[in-house]
């Protein structure tokens, strides 16, 4: 039988995963990438920020080493080495993806694609244009930094997350505009390196969508780290005059921050990568490509996955969508489900969430109950001296089905998956309670919080 030809536009986490999956299922695959495979996540997002997070963590661990009986003198940050370490990690991972694509015989073309008609893709490469005939097209062109209309936002020297990953000289002070995930991660990274951080957020709280109790905890930790957070504040102007001045209005009062650098972290928005969507009549919805729950656009052989669909702008959602799109193309009937998507935030300490927050449970008028457990009551965490944080589990009061969990604390992003699995499979809290959790591990906090939902934790007593 003739092999199906699938052409994927964009080699980020949506596109390259789709390419590998398609090759595994026996398709002939073209993958077009204009910059580097791995996309934003590997090159300018999740991975490089984590490299900086771990440099920052190492530095603060050394500063706190004395408590563990280790004497270290004269530790200092060498940003050039920090950046070099990050670049090395990115290079290894991108090389790894390139290797995987090669092994799966994916035809990777370096260039800018355009869709010429439903079954034809043109690629502008360094050597000239290439025209490919294809049976299916998957659009995976990702997203760009969203720039909000602030006077002076295009002033030279203002950083976006991309430039903030290459700061070889640390500024004394940094204003971060936007208190979402990207803004807060950078706030904790640069604060640990000794930069004076001021976060300005337009909404009334940082980290929209995250459980209130969690954001409150993070804000109090930030305060102790001397990260200044101003919420409900609208930035009206950025000016450069040697230093930067950032003007904002909060409750009708104007204030000005004087800082050495400014980072714009107001989020990301879908990018069509210059494709002629109108000519083809591909429908859009807001600023995203409209897809159904099999990731098909309004044209039957064209699919879209990842940030360009504007659903949930996360790398792991993009790769999940990529797999679902390919499986549908290859004749399997699969649908995406966005209900149980864990999210991971690499502040210090980390935050992880899945399913419903307490606010959402109230809003949906669910009869629920919450189990909580503080990290300081866990033995292993005590030895690590990372006592801040807690876990919350929300269950249905009547059926005991697990509905959501939010964690703030050391290793939160690794702990979330036990609960993700439980929620995805509609487990009851008893299923977690009756599962033996090894001692001494951080995972015991899940067991204890589970117990707390129905009868009370064994190693903690609530004092009201």
């Amino acid at each position, binding site marked *: 039988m003739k092999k199906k030809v699938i052409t994927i536009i964009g080699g980020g986490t949506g596109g390259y995963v789709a390419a590998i999956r398609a090759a595994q299922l026996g398709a002939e695959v073209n993958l077009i990438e204009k910059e580097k495979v791995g996309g934003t996540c590997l090159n300018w997002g999740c991975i490089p920020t984590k490299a900086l997070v771990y440099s920052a963590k190492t530095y603060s661990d050394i500063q706190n080493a004395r408590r563990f009986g280790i004497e270290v003198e004269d530790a200092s940050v060498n940003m050039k080495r920090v950046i070099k370490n990050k670049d090395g990690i990115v290079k290894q991972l991108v090389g790894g993806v390139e290797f995987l694509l090669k092994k799966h015989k994916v035809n990777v073309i370096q260039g800018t694609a355009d869709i010429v*008609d439903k079954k034809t893709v043109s690629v502008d490469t360094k*050597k000239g244009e290439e*025209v490919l005939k294809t049976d299916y097209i998957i659009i995976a062109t990702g997203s760009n930094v969203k720039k909000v209309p602030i006077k002076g936002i295009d002033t030279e020297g203002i950083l976006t997350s991309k430039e903030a990953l290459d700061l070889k000289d640390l500024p004394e002070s940094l204003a971060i505009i936007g208190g979402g995930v990207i803004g807060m991660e950078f706030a904790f990274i640069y604060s640990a390196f000794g930069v004076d951080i001021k976060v300005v957020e337009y909404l009334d709280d940082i980290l929209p969508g995250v459980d209130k109790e969690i954001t409150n905890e993070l804000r109090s930790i930030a305060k102790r780290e001397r990260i200044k957070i101003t919420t409900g504040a609208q930035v009206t102007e950025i000016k450069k005059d040697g230093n930067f001045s950032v003007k904002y209005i909060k409750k009708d009062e104007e204030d000005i921050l004087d800082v050495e650098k400014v980072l714009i972290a107001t989020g990301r928005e879908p990018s069509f990568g210059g494709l002629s969507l109108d*000519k083809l009549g591909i429908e859009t919805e807001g600023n995203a490509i409209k897809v159904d729950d099999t990731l098909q656009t309004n044209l039957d052989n064209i699919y879209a996955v990842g940030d360009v669909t504007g659903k949930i702008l996360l790398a792991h959602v993009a790769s999940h969508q990529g797999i679902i799109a390919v499986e549908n193309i290859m004749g399997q009937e699969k649908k995406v489900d966005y209900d149980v998507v864990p999210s991971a935030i690499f502040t210090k300490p980390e935050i992880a969430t899945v399913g419903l927050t307490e606010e959402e449970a109230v809003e949906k008028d669910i009869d629920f109950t919450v189990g909580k457990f503080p990290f300081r009551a866990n033995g292993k965490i005590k030895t690590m001296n990372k006592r801040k944080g807690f876990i919350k589990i929300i269950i249905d009061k009547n059926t005991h089905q697990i509905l959501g969990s939010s964690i703030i604390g050391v290793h939160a992003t690794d702990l979330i998956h036990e609960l993700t699995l439980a929620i995805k499979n509609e487990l009851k809290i008893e299923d977690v309670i009756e599962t033996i959790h090894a001692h001494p591990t951080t995972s015991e906090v899940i067991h204890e919080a589970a117990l707390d939902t129905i009868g009370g934790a064994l190693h903690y007593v609530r004092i009201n």
Partner: protein
Amino acid sequence: MSELIDKIKNRINSARLIYSDSYNPWYNLALEEYLLNNTKKNEVMLYLWQNDNTVVIGRNQNAWKECNCRLLENNDGKLARRLSGGGAVYHDLGNLNFTFIMDKNLYDIHTQLEVILEAVKDSNIDAEFSGRNDLVASDRKFSGNAFYYGTNSSYHHGTILVDTNFENMVNYLQVSKEKIQSKGIKSVKSRVVNLKELNSSVTVDKMKKELAKYFKEIYGVEPKKEVISPNEIKEVSKLKDKYSSWDWRYGQAPDFDITYEKRFDWGDIQLGLSLTKGKITESKIYSDAMNADLIEDIAKNLKDCQFKIDEITNAINNVKHSKDEEEIIRNLIDWLKEKRI
């Protein structure tokens, strides 16, 4: 020599050498597509063809921008759009086109180029492959190559300049001076050379023979020779209708915006059109003329017109206007008639 060639030689089970007896680009491109669609398993073909007085643009190009189509058509020339990518080229009978069409399995650009390079070198011309899909001799381009990757079969085709009229080439390939904003592929200007200039004994017929010789030698096959009259094959005639159609040649341009500006006695005018598939989807006119209603009506009437001069002049003529506004209408029409529409 390519390492792949031994593998390819082992796989080949059919080889054809095909000549077209037509000089019409629409027929010849139709035959090329027909051969591509009907390639047998492990078959390789070398197809040789010529077009008279023709501009061929790439798959994702804008005819109005890349070619002086008005001048070309006035001189009985033909505009054609090919399936493959790349820039605009001029063909006349001093140019020979080649197409390697094969089962994907047999595709290897180095083997294919070897056939062309050896054929040219036989005439003591030192030819080589440049970085950018061109073949050059003494740093000047004599052959532009383009590629099309179908789902089963692929082709690699190109021009060979033997004795082409460069004056015509320069005139027809002049890029539009209008302000055009578009996606798609821009043509790249190159310094060109006719092979005849490098060796006066080279002719198109001689090149045909050399290509046949090296096709046979390099692929190690005895190809079946055929002269095809494209108009005698029913499917080819059908494909020819596509290649000769306005929709394909002009309408397939990527979306673009074009702006015309002019100062008339009665005022300045700026006409901005947005086009999708050769149709005006948006039309805006800015003018400091006193007749604001007339100008607005003209803009309204232009919307949904095909980008063809007759439709545009009709649309402007059909706008209700008073006697003293006739001059404006006439001026606008005369002005647009000078444009490449």
